[in-house]
């Protein structure tokens, strides 16, 4: 059977080259590629791998540089003789990865970031799921302006939120804007996760809402209908059917939020008054501890950031497993 197939391909190719023999080799090769599915798919694969490798190199090279930095003793980093073509560590100092933990309790900073990011992600995903459902699947007056309003929150530089929030979180009374009337005294939140999770949640909410809105809008009504007839409420259908089916979107929103919060420092540096792990200072706060007044321990910063990236990478791997292609396949006949 397969022999037959082969002969056929050969004859095809043969006749091809015969007709083309007065063209240039490139032209005839192109001809061959265009008309010969085998060769064409080979070309596709080659192209595909070339592109993949290109992406790998470009994204990994700076990271490799980071690794090189981590392994080079700090004194050699700024004094060393770096040369291409092959960039390699100057000296070999894997102890940096240990020293990272000896100098400061870096693991605590990582833990803080992890907790903050997890809490924020949960809040953001829950709230933006509700909002995404509303904006993606319901028709109601005020939808457009509301979405725009939410989006507008992200137009502002984070600094614009900082002072009033900090005042409120340090327990100062809330003052009605422009009137100056004191309304009430909020609890003191600085140095607690609350003072970071709340602003993070608010600031990362718009992105998640918009992501989930697009994804939820794409889930066919039929599936929600089916769930509702089966006995769920609208919310039940959201959590049991729409969210699982939007897994790529939900996972992406979660990963984006998680990573952003995990690496956030602007708010946390203010809200954690003393940059101490006990005050919920995050990962970046820890990283900056390797800078002292006049010098920066680049190798430790590099090592620490590699250590800090690991949990995220693991998380992403896990979250990505949930992203399965063609989730709605086989659901509908329409």
């Amino acid at each position: 059977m397969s022999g037959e197939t082969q002969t056929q391909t050969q004859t095809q190719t043969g006749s091809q080259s015969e007709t083309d023999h007065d063209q240039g080799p490139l032209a005839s090769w192109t001809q061959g590629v265009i008309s010969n599915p085998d060769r064409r798919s080979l070309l596709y694969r080659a192209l595909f791998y070339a592109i993949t490798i290109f992406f790998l190199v470009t994204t990994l090279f700076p990271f490799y540089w980071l690794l090189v930095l981590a392994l080079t003793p700090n004194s050699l980093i700024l004094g060393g003789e770096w040369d291409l073509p092959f960039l390699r560590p100057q000296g070999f100092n894997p102890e940096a990865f240990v020293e990272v933990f000896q100098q400061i309790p870096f693991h605590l900073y990582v833990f803080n970031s992890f907790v903050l990011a997890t809490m924020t992600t949960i809040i953001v995903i829950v709230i933006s799921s509700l909002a995404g459902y509303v904006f993606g699947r319901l028709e109601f007056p005020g939808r457009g302006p509301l979405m725009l309003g939410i989006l507008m929150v992200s137009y502002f530089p984070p600094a614009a939120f900082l002072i009033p929030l900090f005042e409120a979180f340090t327990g100062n009374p809330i003052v009605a804007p422009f009137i100056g009337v004191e309304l009430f005294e909020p609890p003191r939140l600085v140095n607690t996760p609350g003072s970071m999770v709340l602003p993070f949640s608010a600031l990362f909410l718009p992105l998640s809402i918009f992501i989930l809105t697009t994804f939820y809008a794409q889930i066919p009504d039929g599936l929600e209908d089916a769930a509702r007839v089966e006995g769920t409420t609208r919310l039940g259908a959201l959590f049991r059917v729409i969210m699982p089916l939007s897994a790529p979107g939900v996972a992406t929103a979660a990963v984006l939020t998680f990573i952003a919060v995990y690496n956030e420092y602007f708010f946390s540096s203010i809200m954690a008054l003393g940059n101490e792990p006990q005050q919920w200072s995050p990962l970046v706060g820890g990283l900056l501890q390797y800078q002292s007044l006049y010098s920066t321990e680049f190798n430790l910063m590099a090592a620490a950031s590699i250590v800090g990236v690991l949990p995220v990478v693991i998380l992403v791997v896990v979250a990505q497993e949930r992203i399965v292609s063609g989730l709605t396949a086989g659901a509908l006949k329409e």
Partner: protein
Amino acid sequence: MAQVTLNHVTKRYEDVVAVNDMNLEIRDGEFVCLVGPSGCGKSTTMEMVAGLTKPSEGNVHIGDVDVTTLPPKDRGVAMVFQNIALFPHMDVYDNISFGLRLRKFDKEEIDRRVDRASDIVQLEGMLDRMPDEMSGGQRQRVAIARAIVREPDVFLMDEPLANLDAKLRVHMRTELQRLHKELDTTIIYVTHDQAEAMTMSDRIAVLDAGELQQIDPPLVCYNEPENLFVAGFIGSPSMNFAEGELVANGFESEHFTVEFDPSQVPGASVGDRVTLGIRPEDVFTVDRVQNLSSATASIDATTDVLEPMGDEIFVYLVLGESAERSMEGETASSNQLLMSVNPDSDIQEDQDVEVVLDRSKVHLFDTASGQALAHGIEELPGPSAGTGPDAGTSAGTGAGEGTESPVTEAESDR
């Protein structure tokens, strides 16, 4: 108590009226088939009963409760969707047990019911397949199983058997009927399969363009359609129509006449445009006429196309000078007549034949309004060609309101 009542229900989409002022009363435990052409509003009606679509006007009752604003989950309905709508992220078991798990049934009960349902739909070994690993028919069966495990008050089934083969369909038909009896549920069922509608339902509701045309037991719909639309829609192949005029001695169309006393047709008088309808199985070749006591005068025709179906043959006849051939036989004034004959007949294409109609099965409709005038007509009392002693039992009844009319009884007496 699960009668389903629709009161003046209307559903409008932007520019389309999907359902128009529908009044429908389905009794507790009744099995009603909704039939009608594609896009006539069947699915929309079902969705409104299920609570998935809010009626633009009117209200819906299930049992004694006005459920118009009740969410689907509180209506006690289960539905098989026309588009199947399996949960693609769940395997077959999870799909089927979804409703039960929501209601916190205990594991054993769920297993028991899922087993039973998957047995009914013949999917026993497939409980751990994902929807995208199944064939179209298998998916549809999962959808059916998902509805039947619920054992609800009201079943809504939107073409549940469309993707199943004939044999399985017969099996499912009996299973559904058994279920209907066992659970004593109300079933509203959309189907395009006439056999299904005829055999399963207590009553058939015929819809057209969002409006209810007739709701009656199957044989009433078949034998006493209330109007041209129902007559043409019920029965496959559909009824032959001939447009003509009521004349002094009966009906006259371009190609043939049927003699009777026009005065027996209530609500119509000589000179009116009427349409005569006759089903293919009530057209006979003259050589078979000895079986028939109420044959009309014979009509000259030429056979056109033969369609052998195995258990019968459809013969397309052209009346008069065979002009252009059309296999559709849709327009009432066409010169075509479809006849169904025994597969043993030795009828050939392009053969001249004489056919007669079964006078007792002739339907008359008002051409303009489409309303039925008479179902079955008696011979002209004067000198006639009739022979049988028990000919023409019943005069036409008007468009009687969906009760089992005496005609049916009378007819099945023969």
